[in-house]
């Protein structure tokens, strides 16, 4: 993972609360088996709207998203983080993030920075008054600088350390493989295992067939 210490880029004001992961990337885009190339899927439902913030020239190259409260709620899809990253975002700022989204961000080097509602309102006003204004996010100092405004943000110490060192979680854990093995030795024998597989008797599953009514007719907008 790339080390993250400081980032400067165009700020994008997203004045919406409860931006759930279905909004960040609809389920239809989750069928891909690759880890990149999700930039077209980001905020797919809103991208067709010319007034949407990313469709405005001044914000379209943005890399610091400044969002309303409860960003990233809902589904656990890490694709939401990949889509933000693939589009070019390095930082998302909100007053509150959903747990799973925040965890996924940390694993992927996207900084989820928690700032106060008052400070976000201040930054929104600057970004809306002067579209294209750049924001500097300093992870070492935990500050957000937007124009002449400098405000603090929160990120937990462990995530900050991992981001600044660019560390891979799996490699870190595997340094403790002996301790994992020791734990496994002590597990109770009755704890369940998926193998060898146990089943009820096998039964043939009949395929359901379409009913007589074509779906197009039974669907009424």
């Amino acid at each position, binding site marked *: 993972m790339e080390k993250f210490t400081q980032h400067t880029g165009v700020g994008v004001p997203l004045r*919406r*609360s*409860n931006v*759930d992961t*279905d*909004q960040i990337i*609809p*389920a239809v885009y*989750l*069928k*891909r*088996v*690759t*880890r990149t190339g999700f930039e077209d899927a980001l905020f797919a*439902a809103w991208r067709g709207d010319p007034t949407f913030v990313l469709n405005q020239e001044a914000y379209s190259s943005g890399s610091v998203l400044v969002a309303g*409260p*409860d960003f990233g*709620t*809902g*589904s*656990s*899809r*890490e*694709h939401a*983080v990949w889509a933000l990253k693939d589009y070019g975002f390095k930082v998302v700022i909100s007053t*509150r993030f*959903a*747990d*799973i989204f925040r965890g*996924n961000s940390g*694993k992927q080097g996207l900084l989820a920075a928690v700032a106060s509602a008052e400070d976000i309102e201040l930054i929104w006003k600057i970004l809306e008054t002067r579209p294209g204004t750049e924001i500097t996010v300093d992870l070492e100092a935990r500050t957000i600088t937007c124009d002449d405004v400098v405000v603090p943000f929160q990120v*937990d*110490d*462990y995530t900050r350390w991992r981001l600044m060192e660019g560390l891979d*979680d*799996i490699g870190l*854990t595997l340094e*403790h*493989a002996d*301790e*994992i093995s020791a734990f*496994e030795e002590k*597990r*109770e024998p*009755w*704890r*369940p295992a*998926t*193998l060898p597989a*146990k*089943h*009820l008797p096998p039964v043939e*599953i009949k*395929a*359901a*067939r*379409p009913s007589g009514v074509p779906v197009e007719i039974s*669907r*009424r*907008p």
Partner: protein
Amino acid sequence: MAGTLAEKVWDAHVVRPGADGAPDLLYIDLHLVHEVTSPQAFEGLRLAGRPVRRPDLTLATEDHNTPTLDIDRPIADATSRTQIETLRNNAKEFGVRIHSLGDADQGIVHQVGPQLGLTQPGLTVVCGDSHTSTHGAFGALAFGIGTSEVEHVLATQTLPLAPFKTMAITVNGQLPEGATSKDIILAIIAKIGTGGGQGYVLEYRGEAIRGLSMEARMTICNMSIEAGARAGMIAPDQTTFDYLQGRPHAPEGADWDAAVEYWKTLRSDDDATFDVEVVLEAQDLEPFVTWGTNPGQGLPLSGSVPVPEEIADENERITAERAIEYMGLTPGQPLREIKVDTVFIGSCTNGRIEDLRSVAKVIAGKHKADDVRVLVVPASARVRLQAEAEGLDKIFLDFGAEWRNAGCSMCLGMNPDQLAPGERSASTSNRNFEGRQGKGGRTHLVSPLVAAATAIRGTLSSYSDLGTGTPAPDGTPLADLQTV
């Protein structure tokens, strides 16, 4: 020291305590895998030359993408087909057990774990799916993870996890007629909000929770994530043990006795303290439906669409205005007057056999409203078989409903089961986000009983709208229907 249920399960799984603010490294007992959030994780293993550490603690099933019609034919959608074939190849390459489409044990991952007896009290259970919280109904610590974490668990069978806070949600008393566990959880989410559980493991307690069947408990824990919670749990009791005993992977003989003895210790101590406590009175509950575009935007069915001007908080007002516009509703409109196009009965929230039975008992001998499409999608192939053994399929078909094969289906519309733009559903699923069930689709979350009554009348309805005080069609008192 006195501990909560969640703390006890956590403590029993710490491989390595975190020092200096680092998270604890937790052992994972059961890792469930499906086709959508796993391909990039397996790819990561392949690139790093790492094996799956414990294939014997891993189980894969196909659910999100699978069609619910013509399952014996090739999957028409090429990208869905690729994703499912990728899972099959990965399972084969890494030695992971898989239940594929057409297999009797295929189904939604959160139904398959419990029905095989793999989900047990006191386990840590993870899956790349936020509704993994379902398994907390057994007293397991179960939560959804992202794809990087899926890779981490595949490689190490552990996860570094930050500590959580605890919230007790006590539901006192008994549910009134027509209210179900779905109404309890929708009411809880409306009360604490979609972010109210953030950072917490919720423990549901109290007389109303104790009185629920295992499946009804799963419905509640399933939607913990809709309150933003890390997980939801219910302490195991005799109901839990009875559900588990005799299932394929439940312990047997002396192992069973040893397991039950341990499971009985899995309860919050009387003097344990929670960071937050919330209390609800069950008798105040009535059928709940959502009117907006997040699961916290719910109201009793007797209510009306909110009037944004009356909402004091600016953010909430804007959110409500946007939701009402998206949903095509009018402020002040009675919820009972909302007409639906589709009724979806299924999902990991309410696609189990008890849900299908309660719907069947309400609709037996009746026919659906003319303009309404009714989809019944069992949560697993076993649930479908069980329903057919009980003759429920005939009741659904006579009613005019479609009886489908198992999967996630219209809950998230990754397969062909989708709403058209502007189409409105009453859905027993878990999320009413914009476009969740299809681009432009409008979702009202409801209980199976409300779904059944709505399918009959064509407008959002409760059981009582079908004729106050009448027993269910076969003479079973309604009170018995919720915990069949």
